[in-house]
């Protein structure tokens, strides 16, 4: 049996599902903080095999979705700056900003390029020395090391036409903000796999220690997620909240020190604006002063006027876990992946998109 099949094996899955069904937890709400998990849970049909008393919630784990319209409007303004090639990840293009999306900006003739990594943006800068290549950096701890590496490379090679507009965010301040709001009952957390591979599983110890919430770090295969869910339910059942690392084949307690070291060398913490949450102190990554040459916000003078969201869009509540996508009045009607009103319906990791693609009309 191949390595991958081990984590998709139906017999093993059935055994864990039986165990989950036999647990006497009473009503329990389990939240995941990673867009990759949201999609994996829907794709594998995990929600449909859970007993009724287990509620699976999605938190603010989709990086495209938590990007505020103010930040997106800034990217739009940068893209319209003469000489600029704006680069970003594909999912960002369709998100409707206050007035327009990056895709609409591109259709007007401005240059907006999709890249798969910050390093691709750096390569584009080398290929177009006469243009200013700006990378609109969204993402969590997982993508930050590549952004840091690109800045360090640009500095080492003396690339002068490359800069970053960083709206990257940290998951832990986001999780803490959500818990502090107290709007939604969270009895257990499925800890993000890729993020934790960078920051380490120990970073999530605050959940059991400060909030009495059990946490299990999980991978992305069906068995990973089932095992993590079962571990959380067991801890809840035994009233012994702790940290369990169900993804130890990838995640170490201390994380990837080298990668995070590069992030800390290039970026410092700053207040960041999150969709659905507003400003959260020390939750964003901005370039340190010594890397100001690569800071698009300092290199270009762009001003953004009153940013607004579509009045019918309730992505903010979806991101806080207080509203499920089908409860939104425009879900699947005025708001679809083809003509989205908010980012949660656009992003491949958004919960509205996941519901729409995998669970719509299932009831």
């Amino acid at each position, binding site marked *: 049996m191949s390595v991958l099949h081990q984590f998709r094996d139906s017999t093993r899955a059935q055994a864990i599902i039986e165990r989950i069904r036999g647990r006497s937890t009473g009503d329990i709400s389990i939240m995941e903080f990673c867009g990759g998990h949201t999609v994996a849970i829907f794709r594998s049909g995990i929600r449909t095999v859970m007993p009724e008393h287990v509620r699976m919630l999605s938190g603010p784990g989709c990086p495209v979705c938590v990007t505020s319209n103010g930040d997106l409007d800034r990217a739009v303004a940068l893209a319209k700056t003469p000489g600029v090639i704006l680069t970003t990840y594909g999912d960002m293009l369709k998100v409707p900003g206050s007035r327009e999306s990056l895709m609409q900006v591109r259709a007007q003739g401005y240059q907006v390029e999709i890249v*798969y990594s910050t390093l691709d943006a750096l390569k584009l800068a080398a290929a177009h020395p006469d243009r200013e290549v700006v990378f609109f950096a969204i993402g969590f701890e997982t993508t930050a090391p590549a952004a840091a590496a690109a800045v360090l490379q640009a500095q080492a090679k003396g690339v002068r036409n490359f800069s970053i507009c960083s709206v990257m965010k940290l998951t832990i301040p986001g999780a803490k903000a959500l818990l502090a709001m107290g709007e939604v009952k969270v009895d257990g957390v499925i800890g993000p796999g890729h993020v934790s591979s960078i920051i380490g599983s120990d970073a999530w110890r605050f959940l059991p220690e400060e909030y009495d919430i059990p946490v299990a770090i999980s991978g992305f295969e069906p068995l990973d997620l089932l095992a993590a869910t079962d571990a959380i339910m067991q801890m809840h059942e035994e009233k012994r909240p702790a940290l369990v690392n169900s993804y130890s084949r990838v995640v170490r307690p201390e994380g990837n020190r080298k990668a995070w070291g590069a992030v800390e060398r290039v970026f410092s913490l700053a207040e960041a604006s999150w969709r659905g949450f507003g400003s959260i102190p020390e939750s964003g990554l901005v370039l340190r002063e010594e890397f100001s040459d690569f800071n698009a916000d300092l290199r270009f003078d762009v001003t953004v006027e009153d940013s607004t969201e579509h009045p019918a869009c309730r992505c903010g509540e979806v991101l806080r876990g207080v509203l499920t996508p089908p409860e939104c009045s425009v879900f699947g009607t005025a708001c679809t992946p083809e003509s989205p009103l908010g980012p949660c319906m656009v992003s491949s990791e958004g919960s509205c998109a996941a519901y729409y693609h995998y669970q719509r009309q299932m009831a």
Partner: protein
Amino acid sequence: MKHSQILLAHGSGGSMMHDLIQELFLPAFDNPFLRQANDQALIDNPGGRIAFTTDSYVVQPVIFPGGSIGELAVHGTINDLAVGGARPLGLSVGMILEEGLDMALLEDIVGRMKNASEEAGVPIVTGDTKVVERGSCDKIFINTSGIGIVPGGIDIDGKNARPGDAVLISGSIGDHGVAVMSERRGVQFSTPVVSDTQPLHQLVKSMFSVTHSIHVMRDPTRGGIATTLNEIAGQSRVGIEIDEEALPISPEVTGACDLLGLDPLYLANEGKLIAIVPEAQADGVLEAMRGRPEGAGACRIGRVVEDRPGIVRMRTGIGGTRIVNVLSGEMLPRIC
């Protein structure tokens, strides 16, 4: 050929174009219809309804593991005829060449088309060539059209799926999509995934030798089996249920999809067909399919149901259920 590259004059209608046709295309595709050397091919009508189809090929890269734009152009149009129950009679080939195209590459592609046409026994009976300025197309675009004859008694239609029918597939899915995507992104695997491009008309013929009551046949090319099944569910106003565990996907394709962030359900296939047949005929049709090399991996992947018309559902490996939607937009790799 005298020139190592395609020049605009190769499409001008003058002597260079004449040479290109006489020295490259005609010898390669030679057959009595082409030798008529008229503005059209004249083909005898053996009786039955005429099936007519066209498709344009713009694949990039033009050569990929297991095939090229040439094989695709021949097989793709043959298959569009075959899945309608038609016996292919002949193909047209329209080539749009970019100025500066490497002549050796063109010769290679034409040679592949010749082989594909000969192996399938479907002649290329008429053709056209144009050359456009550098930058106006990407190396080579090919349009092929095909005509075929549908014998009486055969009624294959996307509207014909009935509750209780079995959903069959002729072999593994996702191979072509992964072969092209991995080549495009410069990813190499220890066991390379090769395109499944192949003609399916002989396979269809052997299926009809079992029964004429095949309800629907489609080749799941662009958009993959997810899109094809959704089209059928919509046209026939039925629900379709498939089993994830039953889907034939090679370990190499599964691994590559995980790495590249692709979903095999949405990847193009170029040598596979989906058949929807009455349950009573399913085993016999499957046996006939497995008797041909193109159908060696044929299997049953699901069933047609009455409830939730228009919706395709999948029973997942862990025993859950989810919808299999049509693809919206393009597939993008994960970013976090």
